[in-house]
């Protein structure tokens, strides 16, 4: 598994959020973990977006897995940056995208599909969900 890039949000001297982009034998894995609670998450993750724009185009990706199951909280200030990351992930390939999300989490069940832009038929056709119960 090759880590292509990652981004983090620091708050009060501690790392509270990670987004890691990995590649393995034609599969792209994007994992979100921690909490998005800061006022301006884009400021913390601008470098991640720049690296994704640089590294993802032209790469051979057969399938993509986007994992939100370790993301414990996302405030409304975090919605746009999640959309930005997702958009780059979907633009990087044309293959299927598996979205892993928490089964009993209102934002992952109700708002995440909006951030994924599932209203768009082409996006919906590529997307499947795996609902995961919290331990």
């Amino acid at each position, binding site marked *: 598994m090759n880590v292509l890039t990652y981004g983090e949000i620091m*708050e*009060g001297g501690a790392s509270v959020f990670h987004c890691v982009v990995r590649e393995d034998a034609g599969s792209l894995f994007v994992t979100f973990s921690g*909490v998005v*609670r*800061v*006022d301006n998450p*884009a400021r913390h993750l601008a470098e991640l977006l720049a690296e994704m724009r640089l590294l993802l185009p032209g790469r051979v990706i057969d399938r993509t897995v986007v994992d939100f199951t370790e993301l414990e*909280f996302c*405030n*409304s*200030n975090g*919605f*746009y940056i999640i*959309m930005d990351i997702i958009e780059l992930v979907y633009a990087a390939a044309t293959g299927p995208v598996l979205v892993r999300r928490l089964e*009993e*989490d*209102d*934002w992952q069940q*109700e*708002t995440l599909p*909006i*951030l994924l832009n599932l*209203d768009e038929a082409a996006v919906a056709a590529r997307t499947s969900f795996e609902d995961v119960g*919290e331990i």
Partner: protein
Amino acid sequence: MSESPTATRLGVTVTVGPLGDVRGNIATLLGQSLHELLTMFYPPAVGKKANVAVTELIQNVIQNVLDADSELGLDLRVDQDALIVRVRNKATTAQYEAVHARIDALAASVAPKDLFTATLRSRRADRLKGGLGLMRLVAENRFRLAVSYEQEHMTMQATFPLRGMP
């Protein structure tokens, strides 16, 4: 011990002032703390809803502080009937009217989720924040919102009915 864990009555009131003294992310601190407290007595979903409501409502206050000498009031009540979160802060009538208009628009919408979706997309290019938190509380978390204004202070109330919840 109560027959049912959801029979527990819980009330928490927090006041903070002056708001100019707030240094850290108080919305996060209160949201997460109350989430943990509620999860001691209620299903995790109730704690999560309280966390979202407290975080979004207090964040709105912190991002729109009118008077650094003013005070923030948070009141959370939960019993077997409902989870109620109230946040009170000093505001102008213009601020109150803007919030009132957003709540009216949400209440009038037959599909708040569609309104939330359209608003999110239309504001994305300019990264506009206003109102997303309130829309989220209704469209995502099924809260009922109300707002009142008295003596230069606005009180936001978010209510989620718990009766019938598993």
